[in-house]
């Protein structure tokens, strides 16, 4: 079972109990906007506390929160990939090319400096804190739950539809692109070889996928209109958010107050 998918005891396959979103885990069952507040506070605290200790503590806090939410292993895997693909690249580039006086060693045209390494570490860790907050948020809160929370707070259904439909369209179109690519290959279009050969395959693959997708918008618009999507009356929802318990409200308020107090102290201190 994918731990990023809902599946607490008694949960249905889509994480609902008779329509109420629940995962059987206190962290994952938090209100989407409370999760956003907590993660934003951790990020802000990590950014305002002395570097690089604060930044490292922020990254560790995200890992701890992921473990508590039962998504530790998949989140750690994804975070490690980001560390190698984004964090390490940022660090190496800055360490190797940023200006500085104290040269650590020389290797061909490269002369990493102590200042460059420090700058690279801070910058890469700052980005990793932001990456951690965003990726953990979407590991904890499914997009449909977030959109429901926003809609209940007054966001128009058309706006939430645009965001939800975008994610769905990305996966649909990706699948369709692979099918069309296989089909075009079987018709003899070369997708391997030199750059010019591969470039020539781009339009025959892309055009049918995109034109079909654009044509389908008309059918989608008719289907949603038939379901009174654009009517002015309030919409009904298949899912419901769990009522927010008092402890969760209190904990979120405490975290936010603690964060603001720390930032205030830091600003006054410096």
């Amino acid at each position, binding site marked *: 079972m994918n731990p990023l998918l809902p599946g607490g005891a008694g949960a249905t396959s889509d994480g609902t109990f008779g329509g109420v979103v629940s995962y059987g885990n206190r962290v994952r069952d938090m209100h989407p906007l409370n999760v956003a507040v907590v993660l934003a506070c951790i990020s802000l605290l990590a950014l305002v506390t002395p570097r690089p200790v604060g930044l490292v503590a922020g990254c560790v806090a995200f890992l701890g929160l992921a473990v508590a939410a039962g998504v530790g292993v998949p989140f750690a895997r994804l975070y490690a990939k980001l560390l190698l693909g984004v964090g390490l690249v940022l660090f190496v580039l800055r360490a190797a090319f940023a200006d500085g006086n104290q040269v650590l060693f020389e290797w061909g045209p490269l002369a990493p400096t102590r200042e460059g390494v420090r700058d690279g570490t801070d910058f890469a860790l700052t980005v990793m804190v932001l*990456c951690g907050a965003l990726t953990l948020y979407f590991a904890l809160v499914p997009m449909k739950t977030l959109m429901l929370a926003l809609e209940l707070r007054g966001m*128009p259904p*058309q706006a939430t539809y645009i965001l939800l439909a*975008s994610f769905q369209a990305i996966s649909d179109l990706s699948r369709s692109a692979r099918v069309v690519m296989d089909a075009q290959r079987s018709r003899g279009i070369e997708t391997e070889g030199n750059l010019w050969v591969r470039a020539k395959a781009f339009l025959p693959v892309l*055009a049918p996928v995109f034109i079909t*997708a*654009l*044509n389908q918008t008309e059918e989608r618009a008719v289907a949603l209109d038939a379901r009174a999507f654009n009517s002015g009356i309030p919409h009904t929802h298949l899912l419901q958010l769990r009522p927010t318990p008092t402890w969760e409200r209190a904990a979120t308020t405490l975290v936010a107050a603690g964060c603001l107090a720390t930032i205030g102290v830091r600003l006054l201190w410096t």
Partner: protein
Amino acid sequence: MSTQSLISRYGRLTIFMIPIGIAINFVGGQLALLLKLPVYLDSIGTILVGALCGGIPGALVGLISNGINSITSPPTLAFGVLSVIFGLLAGWLGKRGVFTVFWKTLASAIPFALIGGVLGALITLWVFGGLAVGGGALVVGALMATGMDVTTANFVAQVPMDFLDKVPTVLAVFVVLRGIPRRIYAKLPLGEVYLRARGVTPAPAFTASRPAPGGQM
């Protein structure tokens, strides 16, 4: 702009075009990776929706695509302004019929590439001190290793790369626009431009029914 005013100004179909535009941006980029092409091709949807629906919907496609990209790579958030400008420019050019003629479409790659290359380099310099993330940063690093200063390296790396990227992007937009059936054009805000280019004169009611031509399904 609220969604209701977006609908009343651009028509309902525009609301459904925005997610498709966002998906096209992502799939364009994925196809470029699958075919191992040295270009991004991640703004086809922004320019396409801008050309079909107008500047604001195009800018929204760019902005949301950038926001989704930044989930896994926060530094890309700084470049969101580029995507918004691409969308607005595509709407402006689309209204003037630029995407109905092949050579004009090809020439439109110049402003897109200049904005992407020059403004992209300036953002990299201002926000990241000249070293951001991605393939471009590696080229900048390599140029700096040869002794070039960080400002020159950013412009030298990014402007030609953006030209390489925007020429196939606008060509893809042109090909897709040619393949869209007339009945879809009739329901899109800038569809009139493309219908006229195909020799179809819209009925007087078509233009008189603004706002929301074709959007009233």
